[in-house]
């Protein structure tokens, strides 16, 4: 979620944490986390494809931002 967009989930979590006695927690933002496994791709190709998939489908640029990380082999790709 972009900073400028009100995040109702984050606000609710923050309130709930405060009620549980975690008064020192602030600026809670809740978003999505995805893991995908990309086959047959070099690191650059993977990067380019993830970027494209994020723009086209995985995120909505009106309200969301994204970052991703790419891992090799055994553990798939992490966005």
């Amino acid at each position, binding site marked *: 979620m972009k900073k400028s*967009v*009100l995040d109702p989930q984050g606000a*609710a979590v923050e309130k709930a944490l405060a009620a549980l006695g975690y008064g020192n927690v602030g600026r809670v933002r809740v978003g999505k986390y995805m893991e995908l496994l990309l086959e047959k791709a070099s690191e650059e190709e993977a990067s380019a494809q993830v970027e494209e998939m994020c723009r086209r489908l995985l995120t*909505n640029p009106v309200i969301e931002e994204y970052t991703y990380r790419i891992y090799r082999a055994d553990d798939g790709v992490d966005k």
Partner: protein
Amino acid sequence: MKFGVLVFPGSNCDLDAYHLVRDVLEKPVKYIWHGEKKLDGCDCIILPGGFTYGDYLRPGAIASFSPVMEPLKEFALRGGLVLGICNGFQVLVESGLLPGALYRNLHLQFRCSSTHIKVENAGLPFTNLMRPGQLLRMPVAHGDGNYYCDSDTLEELFRHNRVVFRYASPAGETDQPSNPNGSLANIAGICSEGGNVLGMMPHPERAAEALLGSEDGRLVFQSILAHWGEK
């Protein structure tokens, strides 16, 4: 005048829109499968409510890539009438046919309740039988109806009279308690620049028969017929 109702996997108000056109308006109507590549000569396309693809990822996101969206975009560009209701509105927003985004209700719950909406623009193919400022009673039923856009877009929407409906109190105040989902400026429905594409969260098709508690929603469809020169 012929209507088409798009059917995506997970659409569930397709039946309701179809029933409304066929049994209440008594006009020709057909279902159009999401995999179709043409709209088959329909004059008005309805994107019904429901949970296309389960609303997984984001409501309307996956459906907005359906093959049928290509001919729909062309149809809309040529001025064809497109009405997106609830999930249909979400599909229109995700596909870029309407600006902004619809996301999680502010209170985080699905909300099914009766609302009042105020007519802000009575000069559209969808509203020509309404009076500006008129209040309509219609139910909402959604979990992601919280309308958001950036401030430039909002200004543009208001400047060009593209905010069509706003949630209001029974007395006509567009105040905070009347807002069922946290939408910016109580926005319940907006239209495209040309005024031929309307997206709205409330369900006019659920308020078009006395047995269901309100007939106000029928005005939307009667306006469409009037625009087309039919009764």
